[in-house]
């Protein structure tokens, strides 16, 4: 039986969610030998406005490249969380930024409140790295693509000269994610 795993990265324009999706898809497709697509939906604004990026990972052909039944939702803003949590499937995973998302949605899914943006600020130096921290958290919580694949994809994608700090951001997220998993 083939599998199809759907992730939606959501927040606002400028948070690097499209890049996070691309890195995740490349990790799966190039380094883990799976099939993957990444798509996005955004408004006409360059910054702000709602932004979402979707990744489908499968070991089979991916016909429809958009999410239909979400396995994992990442929400970095309250607005994104409110808008998208209903699309998460039963038993799915919702990861929200602990500070940005105050009203926690209720539903038949596991919810993780993680101070993603704060971790990026404190442990990596800038909130800008929240997208890569989030990738680490996802890798710590769910087992869809391997850590090594994600690291390779990050190294290949981020601007030259920023590889190390981005990998550090990934490690910060990974450790945090693993912590949440064991406490569950």
């Amino acid at each position: 039986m083939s599998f199809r795993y759907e992730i939606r990265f959501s927040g606002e324009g400028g948070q690097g969610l499209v890049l996070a999706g691309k890195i995740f898809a490349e990790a799966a497709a190039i380094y883990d030998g799976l099939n993957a697509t990444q798509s996005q939906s955004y408004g006409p604004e360059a910054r702000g406005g709602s932004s979402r990026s979707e990744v489908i990972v499968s070991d089979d052909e991916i016909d429809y490249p958009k999410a239909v039944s979400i396995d994992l939702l990442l929400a970095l803003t309250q607005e994104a969380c409110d808008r998208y949590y209903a699309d998460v499937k039963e038993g799915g995973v919702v990861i929200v930024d602990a500070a940005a998302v105050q009203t926690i949605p209720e539903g038949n899914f596991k919810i993780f409140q993680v101070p993603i943006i704060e971790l990026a600020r404190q442990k990596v130096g800038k909130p800008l790295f929240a997208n890569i921290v989030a990738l680490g958290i996802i890798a710590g919580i769910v087992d869809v693509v391997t850590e090594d694949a994600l690291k390779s994809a990050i190294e290949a994608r981020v601007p030259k000269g920023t590889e190390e700090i981005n990998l550090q951001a990934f490690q910060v997220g990974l450790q945090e994610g693993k912590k949440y998993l064991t406490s569950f």
Partner: protein
Amino acid sequence: MNVIRVMTGNEACAEGALAAGLSFFAGYPITPSSEIAEELAELLPCAEGVFIQMEDELASIGAVIGASLTGAKAMTATSGPGFSLMQENIGYAIMAEVPCVIVNVMRGGPSTGLPTLPSQGDVMQARWGTHGDHQIIALAPYSVIEIFDLTIRAFNLAEKYRTPVILLLDEILAHVSEKVVLSDTAVRVIIDRIIPQEAPEAYLPYRYTQNLIPPMAPFGSGYRYHVTGLAHDETGFPTNDPVEIEKLLFRLQDKIIRNRDDIVQVEEFLLEDAEIGIISYGSSARSCRHAIRQLRAQGVRVGMLRLITIWPFANVKVEKWTKNIGKWYVVEMNMGQIAREVEAAAHGDATIFGIRQINGEPINPEFICQKIKDGLNV
């Protein structure tokens, strides 16, 4: 060697164009097509080609036509509003028989409409956007790898038939990143235009040849001739002689129509045992494939005739399949532009329903499943 990459449709379009031998690009940036220009601004000069960002879309298509007349393989890329501005010169390229590729990444319209959201609303504009009786070739890929392949094919058809070819993408396909396996050793069929063998003095630029496609001399190679959008005779100079006019206009029609078998491509997906048929194209066909898999898992025998070439329309295939299967759904992100063509081709042999959506959202496969299941009880 095979290289595995994750690339977007727009990237695949730019790279397909280069693989086809693109040497000139002129364009004006517009969402959701801008990345094609962005890629080519970087890659084309490295391939000794020319990239120009023009002042608008009218100038862009004008520059493309001029470059093609000098022998360049030329392309532009735009979206709805820019495609509207190009219509006059597309007609000129048809009349003057100038090969070129026009990529239209469809977004929601009319007017500036929905810059960042998908649509398939320009299918009829691709067919009839420019005035006068004419034929056009338009292709509609449905995946990133098919965008790469069909961009090459668009150039091949343009060069072979001396005509503009329109490549219809949409926002979903342009921006989706997909895994592609590209072989850097693959032997690809690349077609170049036929150039005249005779001496410049003996050259008739619009000679009525047996295959209906006159050899084309590149400007600057010693051949001097006249190019006009007016009806012209074999010399390229304008004429009002009804015999010459008819000769020209029928040749322009016939060079496409008589070669339908070469130009028209469809994919027949799970149609053999199907009781219900779907006709779709572009990214909507992706939604359909997903829906077909789900419906088949529930025992509903559905298949799809996917249009790869949109224009000329796949009449022969549609006629054949609508005789075999009595119930059809035409799935598209517009108000039924292709559904009407299907109805005409079916000659009443089948019942045709439309599944349509124009709200800027991709068509959810679940929506298609529901419509088809609702129809089972009727």
